[in-house]
Structure formats: structure tokens, C-alpha cells
């Protein structure tokens, strides 16, 4: 079984702060970690490999320091890792990110399963998994919390819904996005971490030409969306006291709600 895991390196906090002047993320003094959901994706892939045989390849797009996240993935038991790093990739929106990841997966070639986290704690869109599946024309199952069975050409998983779950059987190859409920991620092993940090470590670095893309197809230039402004929303309570008897207050309330298009 050939498994690919997509992981993202994120700042170690859910409480991301923006510089009020530039509107960009304050990364100073914030440690980087593997996106929490992606640890569960790694665990799922590694334990499947242990059970079924095969190979786990980890893929991440990010700046050079993303190599730390990949070393950790190797420490956990992934066989090899690829870092997609190129100044041309910078500033990608989710579409450009998915395209770049999709191209790289095509270059890797054979695979039976792709694991993603449900959502990154910084970008938070939960778009990458579905978009990569779409690009590759493979079926996708999101919010997976249990892998029930792997058959020859299909897989049976359970996906979480707000008020229950769905049991889905789908053809392989497929892309799954997973949630924390799926498993308990293992710790990396010291020996493997040390190997991952050595020169002959199984981590490759690919740039735009390695995956056969032009600079204007990826990164900021290849993005369909452009960020005009980022800002931290100000939380100001704008309470308004309605006065008068119950009938009058109710009337004003309905008017106000209509006015604000809330009803």
C-alpha cells in the first residue's frame, strides 16, 4: 500500500496574532508544529503501513524551516518526505496550494491513499484536501474518524456528521481528510529523528521546475484570490436598550431585525 500524507507546518497556537500595522501574522517567538489534525493523518498512514506493508511518503509545501515538520514525520515512521520549497510558491491561496500539491503527487506517481488533516489551525479553510482530490480526480471522504476495513480495491471508513456518522465505502485510490478522534498519534523515535537530521536523510526538496510548473501557475501569481487586507476583527459590543412597554419594545425589535436583514 502506497500512502501519501499531506502535512502543514503551523504556528503553535490557535490564538494567532496579527501585527496591527502590517496585518501579517506575528511569527516571532511562536514555535512551529505539525498541524494537529495532520499528526492524526500521519498516525493513520503509519499504522496502516505497519499492518498492510508498503510505504508512507510525506509531502509539505512551505518555507525551508518546514523541514523540521518533515523530520518529525520521519521520526514517527514515515519512509520518505518531500519538501516543496521555492520562492515561486510563496503567497499561494488554497487553489494554488492544491494545484502545487496535486502536481507533486502526480510526480510521485503510484498511490493508493492520500491522507490530509481536516483543517489547518492557521489558514482554517479545510479546502486543501477536497481541492487536491478534485485535481487528481479521485474520490474523497472528509471528517474520517474510523478506518473500518481495507479491501482489495476499496476502503470502508466512517465520517463524522454533526449528529451521527456516515459509513462510506469508496474506491481506491482515494483521499481522506481525518479528525482527531481517529487515533492517538505516536511520538517520534529518537533514533529515527537523529537519522532524519543527518545528511543522508530521506527528505527531498523539490522546486517549481522539479514538478514541471511555471512560476505564474503557482504561488501568488497562480492564485485566483488576492488578499486585499488582513486585520484582527475588533470586538465591540454595540448594545442598544429598547424602552417602553412590552408591545412597543417588541415592535421596535422586529423593525430593527428587519432593518438589519436578520429576519
Amino acid at each position, binding site marked *: 500500500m502506497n500512502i501519501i500524507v499531506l502535512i502543514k507546518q503551523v504556528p503553535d497556537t490557535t490564538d494567532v496574532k496579527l501585527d496591527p500595522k502590517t496585518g501579517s501574522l506575528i511569527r516571532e517567538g511562536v514555535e512551529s508544529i505539525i498541524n494537529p489534525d495532520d499528526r492524526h493523518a500521519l498516525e493513520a498512514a503509519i499504522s496502516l503501513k505497519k499492518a498492510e506493508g508498503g510505504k508512507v511518503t510525506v509531502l509539505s509545501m512551505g518555507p525551508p524551516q518546514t*523541514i523540521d515538520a518533515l523530520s518529525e514525520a520521519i*521520526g514517527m515512521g514515515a519512509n520518505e518526505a518531500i519538501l516543496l520549497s521555492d520562492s515561486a510558491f510563496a503567497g499561494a491561496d488554497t487553489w494554488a496550494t492544491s494545484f502545487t500539491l496535486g502536481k507533486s503527487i502526480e510526480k510521485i506517481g503510484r498511490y493508493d491513499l492520500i491522507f490530509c488533516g481536516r483543517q489547518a489551525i492557521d489558514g482554517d479553510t479545510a479546502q486543501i484536501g477536497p481541492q487536491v482530490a478534485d485535481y487528481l480526480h479521485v474520490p474523497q471522504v472528509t471528517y474520517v474518524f474510523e478506518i473500518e476495513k481495507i479491501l482489495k480495491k476499496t476502503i470502508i471508513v466512517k465520517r463524522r456528521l454533526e449528529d451521527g456518522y456516515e459509513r462510506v465505502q469508496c474506491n481506491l485510490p482515494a483521499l481522506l481528510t481525518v479528525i482527531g478522534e481517529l487515533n492517538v498519534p505516536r*511520538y*517520534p523515535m*529518537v*533514533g529515527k*529523528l537523529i537519522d532524519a*537530521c543527518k545528511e543522508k536523510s530521506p527528505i527531498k526538496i523539490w522546486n517549481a521546475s522539479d514538478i514541471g510548473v511555471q512560476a505564474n501557475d503557482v504561488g501568488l501569481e497562480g492564485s485566483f484570490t488576492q488578499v486585499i487586507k488582513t486585520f484582527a476583527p475588533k470586538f465591540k459590543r454595540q448594545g442598544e436598550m429598547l424602552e417602553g412597554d412590552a408591545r412597543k419594545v417588541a415592535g421596535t425589535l422586529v423593525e430593527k431585525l428587519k432593518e438589519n436583514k436578520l429576519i
Partner: protein
Amino acid sequence: MNFDLIEEHKMIRDMAKGFADEVIAPSAEEMERTGQYPYDIMNKMAELGMMGIPFPEKYGGSGGDWVGTHICIEEISRGDITLGALLDVTTSVTGQEIDVFGTEEQKKEWLVPIAQGTKIGAFALTEPDSGSDAGALRTRAVLEGDEWVLNGTKQFVTNIGLDNASIALIAAISGKGQRGNIISTFIVPKDAPGFQLGKGYEKMAWHGSATHEIILENCRIPKKNLLGDPSRGFAQHLAVLETGRISIAAVSVGVAQACLDEALHYARERTQFGRPIFDFQAIQFKLADMAVSIELARNQYLKAAWLKDQKRKHTFEATVAKLFASEMVEKVASDAVQIHGGYGYMDEYPVSRYYKGAKLLQIVEGTSEVQRMIIGRVLAGGM
């Protein structure tokens, strides 16, 4: 000059940190209260390769270095002091002595399981009448045909009471030379005939650590279990105890860090006179002093470990690290209790456990007085 940890060390630190917080710390109170040895945690540490960080992969180790080993010891000790001490004894002292002085066959038989952590090693130097004066030991070894026969008593032996302890390294008098007794070191399996495990000691703290007496009554071991040079057994011991000092310094820093974390957290939460006690300068100054001494102690153990990795002499640096860190942690732990007030004296707050545990660090691997004697000898130009 570069003070940054390399990637390998950061990775080991992050892993050990997560493990200490998520796996060890939640069970530390129970370990101390029940005195039950944490076999499940030890097995997990073994699987993750923590027991053999500095040893070559071909002997079951992780192929790392002594800086990485000690960063791991610090983090593990932050979770629980006794597990840090376990690593000191099995890896830094026992494992290392076999790695450095053992034959190929001895390494295969004894080092591999210790490095993999499936077995735990012990180191038995102290005797009832020979503690700081370790050279005055009385245990004797006599060669009879193909076997060494050992007689004597070793006491306060860490780890040996564990079910998965395999051996103790035992120093014994094996003959008489021109300059007095010849001391040799032996690899003595726990299941050797004549090896009796005394009962566990009732201790002030460290209840998760399996400290026992060993009685050797015509204990027979194969001739091949002699470790290293028969006339240099004592020197071999002293060589690895130098690393043991770095390890106790790292244990001290880990425990002190746990004290500071708890005290800082408590000072922010506890309100008296209408404000968090953190706002009182007397409390902030204590916390500041704690942070200062931890920082210095950490830098010193890392320096000593780094010198060891560079294969350079580090007697002075390792001894400074041990002395400073072990004295520091007792003070830091005491201040952490002080910041907690009466609650700090209650078993339900971890600082009471840290305080009781910290005291021993000034005694094991050479008392503070012995460390000062060594530093004195270095100053006198004798070492």
C-alpha cells in the same frame, strides 16, 4: 561560538517534552504515593529509543550524542525525578561503562538490551562502610577455575529492584598490587547463583525508584564477565561517574524547571490582599532568582556534555554542573513551596514532591562535599 541547539537536539527535546507532559507527569503523583514502578512508561521510553541515545545503532542505541542524551534526561526529570535518575544509571553510567570498556561479546550480550531498554542496568559501588570513600570498598572477587566468586554487600543500588533489571556492575577487590588493593569491575547478572536482592529501602521520597541492597554470598559468575582492564576497575568507574554528574545536573535542572513552572502558575492564580501574589515584589524576586539559577545550571550541564561530545577533558565542568545544579534545585524547590504557602506542604500540590525529591541530588553520584573536594583538587593542579 554558537549557543543554538542543532535540529537533532531540538527534535529530541520536543519529543521528550511532549512525552513528559502527556505520559509521565499525569502518573508521577501516583508513582510516588503507591511506590509502584512505572513499567509501562519505561517500556514506552524504551520503544522511543530514550534508553540508548548515545550508543551506536549496532549495539541497539540511537546513534546520538551526550548533549541529546542530557536534554532528554532534563525533560524526563521535569515529568518525574526518578525516571531521570533511571536514565542516569542505566544509560550514562552502566551502559556507557560497557560501551567504552566492554568486549564485542559483552556489548552484544549486555549493552544491546540496555540500549534498547528491554533490560535496565544498575551500578553498585557504595557499600555500608564505603560511601564517599569509595576506594575503601570491601567486596572481594576470587578467580576459581573459569569463574569469579564474589563476596560482599553493596547498598543503595538504584534500579536493581526492577523486574527487568538485568545486571549490576560491581566493583570488587581482586588482588593486591604494589600500591594497595587491585579493584576490578564485574558484570554481575541478577540471576547469578549467590546473588541476593535485599529488600527495598523505605525512603523519604523517590518511591518510584527501585533502590535495594545486594548481598553477594559466593556469587559465581563466568570469568568472561570481568569488564575492562582488571587493574583499572576503579578508574573505569570514576570515568563514567563523571558523566553521571552531568546527568544529575540535568535531572536537577528538569526538577527545578518543574518547580518554577508550578510556582509561576500558582503566583498568578493565588490572590491575597486583593491581587495576585505575583504582583508582590518579594514573590517576583524569588521567581526571578529561580529563573536565573536554572538558566545558569542548564548552560553548565550543556557545556559539560558538549565537551564530552568533543572528547575533551571535562572533569571541572561536569563537577561544577553537578554541584551548582543540585544545590540550586534544593533552593528552587524550597522557594516553590514557599510561594505556595501552606498549600505547598500538601501532597496534592506537586511542589511538595519536588521538594522532597530534590534533596537527594546533593548526595547521589558524589555528595556536594565530594564535588568540592574534586574542584579543590583541580584548583590545586592535581587533576
